């Protein structure tokens, strides 16, 4: 087994009246990592962190530190993982001056892929038997500027046959990580009861992907296939796509900003005309119904909210007819 864990150390941890303080999370994580280490003797582990302004490796089986003091009551490799991560985190936070710099979660994701790729090329990991996977602990909302890098990493993960699991600890659902988990066959978990974090982790993420087929792991109910537009980085559900380069825009524009293609003026006017005031807010509207549907998903996954969104969206029918005429 080969597991790479990614921790998101962005400042969202500090927005906390959150029910999950970072220290408590670390305790849960340590227990989970111990369980993972104990599950098999040849299980390999690496932990990356996306800190403000930098990405770094917190722990890796390949660069083993040494234990200063050994506790006779503890299994040494458990204490090694815990103490290495704690030391590196302490060093990191004493180094950090500004917390405001953005965290590059996607950069860390690419790091993890490179790490696994290197392990495969050097023969430390065989994709068939080791089932390499990445577990992302995210606390930040979607960063729409990272849309293209995330998509590229998803396809690379598919090529390497790496499963991406996502655990969203705080904040709203992330569309892109949801797609990442869906497309690589991993699980996406939106944490609801923070006290039960460890239970969630062991039930959902401890078993390797091949075993999950026979277990009842939480399934992903609805996957949002929305994309980020290239012009304003909005997340849109109806976009205008350049037929030459497939760039996505949130509104009709005369010239493609990516490939400099000029679109026929008539067509742009036509599209603009069809985009009447009642229609423009459709992205926000649709996303608000989707957001509203999120809390209900645990008890009745994707059933009730489907009906609600059908009826509570008074503009859906007029919108369609207007577009049909245009």
């Amino acid at each position, binding site marked *: 087994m080969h597991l790479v864990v990614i921790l998101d150390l962005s400042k969202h941890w500090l927005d906390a009246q959150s029910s999950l303080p970072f220290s408590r999370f670390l305790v849960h994580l340590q227990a989970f990592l111990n369980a993972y280490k104990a599950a098999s003797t040849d299980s390999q582990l690496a932990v990356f962190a996306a800190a403000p302004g930098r990405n*770094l490796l917190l722990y890796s089986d390949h660069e083993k530190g040494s234990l200063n003091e050994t506790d006779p009551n503890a299994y040494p490799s458990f204490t090694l993982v815990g103490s290495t991560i704690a030391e590196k985190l302490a060093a990191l936070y004493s180094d950090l001056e500004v917390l405001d710099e953005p965290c590059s979660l996607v950069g860390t994701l690419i790091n993890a892929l490179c790490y696994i*790729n290197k392990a495969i090329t050097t023969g430390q990991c065989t994709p068939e038997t080791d089932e390499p996977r990445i577990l992302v602990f995210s606390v930040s909302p979607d960063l729409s500027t990272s849309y293209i890098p995330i998509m590229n990493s998803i396809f690379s993960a598919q*090529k390497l046959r790496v499963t991406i699991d996502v655990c969203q600890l705080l904040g709203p659902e992330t569309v892109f990580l949801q797609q990442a988990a869906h497309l690589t066959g991993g699980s996406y978990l939106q944490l609801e009861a923070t006290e039960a974090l460890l239970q969630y982790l062991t039930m959902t993420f401890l078993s390797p992907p091949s075993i999950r087929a026979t277990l009842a792991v939480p399934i992903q109910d609805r996957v949002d*296939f929305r*994309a980020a537009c290239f012009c304003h980085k909005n997340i849109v559900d109806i*976009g*205008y796509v350049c037929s*030459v380069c497939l*760039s996505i825009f949130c509104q009709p524009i005369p010239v493609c900003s990516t490939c400099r293609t000029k679109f026929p003026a008539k067509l742009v006017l036509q599209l603009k005309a069809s985009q009447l005031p009642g229609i423009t807010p459709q992205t926000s509207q649709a996303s608000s119904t989707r957001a509203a549907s999120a809390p209900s998903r645990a008890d009745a996954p*994707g059933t009730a909210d489907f009906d609600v969104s059908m009826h509570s969206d008074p503009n859906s029918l007029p919108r369609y007819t207007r577009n049909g005429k245009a």
Partner: protein
Amino acid sequence: MDVDSDDSDIEISSRNKGKGKATAKKPKAIRTEAISAQPYTWEENFARSWDTVTEDATGSLQTTVDDLQARSRRRRLLHPSGTALRRTIIRHLVLLLDLSAAMADRDMRPNRWGLTLEHARVFVAEWYDQNPLGQMAVVGMRAGLGERICSMTSSVQDVLKSISEKHKLEPSGEPSLQNAIEMARSAMSHLPSHASREILILFGSLTTVDPGNIHDTIDACAKAKIRISVVALAAEMKVCREMCERTSGQFGVVMNEGHYKDLLLELVPPPAQVGASSAGRIGGDAVSTAPKANLSADLLMMGFPTRLPHSAMAALCVCHSELKSEGFLCPRCLAKVCDVPTDCDVCGLMIVSSPHLARSYHHLFPVGAFTVVTTRAEAEADACFACARPFPPIATSGGAATGGGDGVSPYGRYRCPKCSREFCADCDLFVHEVIHCCPGCGK
């Protein structure tokens, strides 16, 4: 034709023409041929290639081989410039397979026909992977006729199934280029103007039996902006080369089994679009003189759906009127459709899943080539930024590595010009060939 200046027997320039049976792994065979005579230009590549091979301290050739491999990889990486190109992405391709008696020739193992089918399967899978919005058809050339093997489809399974039924594809008779091209052309005549039309011919024969003048067919193809590419298994034929040049396609002659695959895989990425606003480069006659060169561009309205799970409440789908729970919701009218990409049956919106579009984005925003760390002073980092593996200590590796140059770092370190982080050779390759994003820049 340009010939690479240095000699390495691993590097095979794909631009060379000619026919030979030598493989890269058999320097001896190459040597005897090269000494006896040099009738083919491609052999210049291999001239005195043994001179570059030197043993290292332990008497092994491994370091030289590694070095040559690193050089060829770097050359491949450095080749494309880091600028965004206009590429056609909604592609339509007709694959023309030669199924004439010439394909039973055994100069490639197991024979030309078997190898062609095998490589075609790899090509089709890779093509659909990189062109998820593309469509492909397969046409065979057998007994003087064009034969439809698979009609235009966007399903990779259909195409793979049709070319894996070997008993239906037994080679016989003479091929007819004209008949097959006409068939392919008619299959693509209805396509919208913004879609690309391409024909790829895998041609084993040295003859073609045509009912009329093939030059008329070539003219018609050039007029319809159909790009014809040929991979010839036997030798260069004038009509094939002319066909490719007229339609700005690519022409290549296979040198050995590995080269065959390389030639095919070169045709997988979407071609840069011709006839763009800058003066048309190739085949510019009909294309760029047209008053509106950008007539083919379109702004398409597309919707990105929500996928419903198996556990959702069952509802009727609009496409088959079947009661089922899983499906996709049209973002505009919230109708449920079974599969994407498709057009919504209620409101007509084109529904695609965004990963379909995103698969081609790396062609648009390529990562710039990394610079080479050549001097000891430049090497700062302890570990590769991407994979976090420590670099080998400089003192020892500096002695062993033969000097830099040719885009290879003596210390195995490469630096991103934007974020100035250092990367190892493996990660350099992986970032440029697979991920297409620099981890340091996050883009």
